[in-house]
């Protein structure tokens, strides 16, 4: 009898333990959950906290959002669903506020940077402008200087050229006339009654060659003249031959023949009276006219 009682008690205890433990388990299983939406709020907050541009810019707001999310995550019994909804709503808004405030501050920070960039750009532009102005000024200055020097140089060169030209003319003992430079080869430079050049003529003609090489654009007209002794035809022929003889010599000295023209004038253009011997001698001559350069 007593043993059965003990057995019964034991069985009762086992049953009780079983019931208790199963109760415990079901209690665990049906323990109130976090309200719906709380995990979404948490996710949003985590995203915000992990955003390197935003996380540090709204610390206070994020802390408030964190607190709100934690409240929203608190498990609530089923009958307090409205409270849970409210808490989730509050948490959502707080996270969104934190995000907006952080975004505002981020934009402000960017603006500062933007402003700095713009200032830098402006400064750069101004510096460049000043630099350009300076460059332009110095360029203008150097241009002016160059112009002056080139003008001076030009003037100097021109005067040098003129001087040289004059010295060449002097060397040729040429006469400056409207037709050009006139160089006269006198009668003494030709053999009597012949077109053959005498030794002295070559010195003068060599100077002429030098001059013509110096001024390659100048053309040369070679005219033969005589006195009135002898027939017109004879004199004409002789004057032409003398002129041609000069031309021939110049051509030999490699003066282009296109630059040379010859004519026999004869006795028609005396420079002195044929009445005296010295006058006649002056009239027997070859005139070499170096034409002035054609003006452009």
């Amino acid at each position, binding site marked *: 009898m007593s043993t059965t009682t003990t057995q019964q008690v034991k069985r009762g205890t086992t049953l009780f333990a079983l019931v208790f433990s199963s109760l415990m388990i079901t209690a665990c299983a049906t323990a109130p959950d976090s309200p719906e939406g709380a995990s979404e709020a948490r996710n949003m907050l985590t995203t915000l906290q992990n955003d390197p541009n935003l996380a540090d810019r709204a610390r206070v707001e994020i802390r408030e959002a964190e607190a709100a999310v934690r409240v929203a995550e608190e498990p609530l019994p089923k009958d307090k669903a*409205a*409270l849970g909804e*409210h808490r989730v*709503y*509050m948490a959502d*808004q*707080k996270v*969104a*506020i934190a995000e*907006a*405030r952080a*975004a*505002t501050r981020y*934009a*402000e920070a*960017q*603006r500062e940077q*933007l*402003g700095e*960039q*713009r200032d830098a*750009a*402006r400064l*750069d*532009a101004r510096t*460049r*402008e000043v630099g350009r102005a300076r460059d332009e000024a110095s360029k203008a200055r150097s241009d002016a200087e160059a112009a002056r020097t080139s003008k001076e140089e030009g003037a100097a060169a021109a005067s040098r050229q003129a001087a040289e030209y004059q010295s060449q003319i002097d060397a040729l003992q040429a006469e400056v006339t409207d037709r050009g430079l006139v160089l006269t080869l006198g009668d003494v430079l030709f053999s009597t009654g012949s077109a053959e050049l005498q030794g002295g003529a070559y010195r003068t003609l060599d100077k002429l060659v030098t001059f013509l090489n110096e001024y390659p654009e100048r053309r040369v007209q070679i005219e033969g003249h005589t006195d009135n002794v002898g027939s017109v035809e004879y004199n004409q022929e002789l004057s032409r031959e003398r002129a041609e003889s000069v031309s021939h010599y110049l051509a030999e000295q490699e003066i282009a023949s296109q630059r040379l023209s010859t004519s026999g004038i004869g006795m028609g253009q005396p420079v002195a009276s044929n009445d005296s011997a010295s006058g006649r001698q002056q009239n027997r001559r070859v005139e070499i006219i170096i034409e002035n350069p054609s003006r452009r």
Partner: protein
Amino acid sequence: MYQSINRRFGGRLRGYLGLALAVILVSACATAPVAPTAALVEARDAIASAEQAGARQHAGAELDEAQQKLVAAEEAVSNERMAEAERLAREAAVVAELASARTESAKAAEINREMGRSADALDEEMKRTGDRP
């Protein structure tokens, strides 16, 4: 004598207990029907300042929501659902605050865009002047 003191003390204690109970009961009765005035005021202030900041233009949806919540809170007050009224008032306040925050950030972004545009224009101009010989 000792007994009378004891009895008097016991009576006073009983009186205090009764008073405390009455206070608790009264306050319990009082909290239920009292309107969440502070929360409502806060919500109205938050909505007003959001409107002032220009939320109508930049965060219209949030502002609308705040106003709807406030209306709902006021209805709950008139129906004497005070707990609900308080929650709604708080929600109205928080969403109004969000409207303000989003307005600010929208304005800030707009200013940045504007600055970006003018910076680009400046860049463009500088490039042009830079090209000039």
